[in-house]
């Protein structure tokens, strides 16, 4: 696949959250979140259910409009743009090409009744690919990269196991060579052995492709394996942030200490 012209420099942030907040009526789901994400950087957002981490992910990926603050993204021309001010075509470009979104439930990110090959090929057709043979070859090589037997390319994902579906969802997202991938509990609901394989695969793909990623997880082991940096959320706020191993090995806040100390030894 041809390299897209990339004028973004590594020392300039790819995505910037600036005092982001979201209220539902009187309920505050997320409050005053600010950070910058750089190209190639993996940020984990950890916290228990209800801490606001999924709301934050939806705000960052422009699926929800913020009640306060804003999210800016550096487009491929190198200009940092407020997501709320993007036109429909630019927004579509982000969702189809420059971003990936991996759902916890693969059924939300895949079309369960069409073939695996079509699931991957669809993203390519959306960005203008029209040569059937090339689309099929690319889809097939992506199935191999995510360790799915290419003999299963014509089968629909509803015939796949949970782990295979999740790997297919990842292939579908990465085929357009996005620069940023959002992941919402990507290993949730999978068996432990399947999780390890998926984590290893994601870790390699992220580093080989130089992807930036924002991973929401309640599992600190996932954060440790995948991320460079961690944000700990509680009650809609970011209460602690830092290098992943710093926050996990030397947690400062009472809540972070509680999270870290609650891991069951294997």
């Amino acid at each position, binding site marked *: 696949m041809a390299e897209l012209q990339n004028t973004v420099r590594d020392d300039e942030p790819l995505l910037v959250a600036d005092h982001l907040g979201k209220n539902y009526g009187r309920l505050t789901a997320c409050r005053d979140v600010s950070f910058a994400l*750089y190209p190639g*950087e993996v940020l984990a957002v950890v916290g228990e259910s209800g801490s606001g981490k999924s709301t934050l992910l939806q705000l960052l990926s422009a699926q929800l409009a913020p009640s306060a603050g804003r999210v800016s993204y550096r487009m491929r021309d190198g200009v940092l743009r407020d997501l709320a001010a993007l036109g429909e075509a630019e927004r579509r470009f982000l969702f189809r090409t420059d971003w990936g979104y991996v759902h916890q439930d693969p059924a939300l990110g895949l079309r369960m009744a069409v073939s695996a090959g079509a699931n991957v090929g669809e993203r390519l057709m959306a960005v203008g690919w029209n040569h059937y043979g090339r689309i099929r070859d690319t889809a097939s090589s992506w199935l191999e990269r995510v360790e799915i037997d290419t003999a299963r390319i014509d089968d629909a994902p509803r015939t796949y196991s949970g782990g295979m579906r999740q790997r297919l969802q990842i292939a579908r997202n990465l085929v357009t060579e996005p620069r940023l991938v959002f992941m919402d509990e990507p290993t949730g609901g999978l068996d432990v052995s399947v999780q*390890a*394989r998926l*984590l*290893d695969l994601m*870790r390699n793909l992220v*580093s080989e492709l130089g992807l930036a990623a924002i991973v929401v997880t309640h599992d600190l082991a996932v954060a440790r*394996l995948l991320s*460079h*940096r961690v944000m700990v959320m509680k009650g809609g706020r970011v209460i602690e942030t*830092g*290098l992943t*191993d*710093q926050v996990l*090995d*030397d947690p*400062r*806040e*009472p809540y972070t*200490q*509680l999270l870290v*100390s609650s891991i069951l030894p294997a």
Partner: protein
Amino acid sequence: MSALMTAMIDITNAEKTFTMHLQGGVELPVVRGVSFHVEPGECVVLSGPSGAGKSSILKMIFGNYRCDGGRIGIRHKDTVIDLATAEPRQVLSVRRSTIGYVSQFLRAVPRVATIDVVAEPLIANGTARAEAREQSGALLRRLNIPERLWALPPPTFSGGEQQRVNIAHGFISDLPILLLDEPTASLDAANRAVVVELIEEKKRQGVAMVAIVHDDEIRHLIADRIVDVTSFAAAA
């Protein structure tokens, strides 16, 4: 920081206290007034009884533990970075190109073959995979890890084998600073001798090292200077 600094590591009055919020906010002072420096090609060994804070100091130099005060100056590329106040991105950059850390225990990703675990730091710094694997194999062979084990993930190995994989992982890159936490703890005499040789080679290449070693014989062999950590004891 002055351009006159020749030391690779220059620590001034660094301190660390743990606050245990789950134990009613108990404060555990670990070290205070930590001050020493390490020149290129020098191996400084930290001494003191267990619990004196030796490992904590290594972790502070690696940026794994945060400092509560003081300064940890690290010569990184053409500048000096204070790791006590550095941004996460700077710490990662320092770890990629300046400081290596050999811990006592290997934290390996499940499923990754030993030869790739060891090659990984080279690949991360841009060495081609084939070349990185070749160097990885050479170092594993030197550390007496039999070739039939290279394709297996290290978590299936014995303690001593895992430690040797860890040493290979730590020594493979050409980083100007190495931190060694008990690098010979569970090794037999032959493998201890290999590690001493590797440390000697690093010294000749101008690498600055800080080590913790309990074995007196090894300490005599590798230490250019000993820093007694008990003088940094924080009064409880």
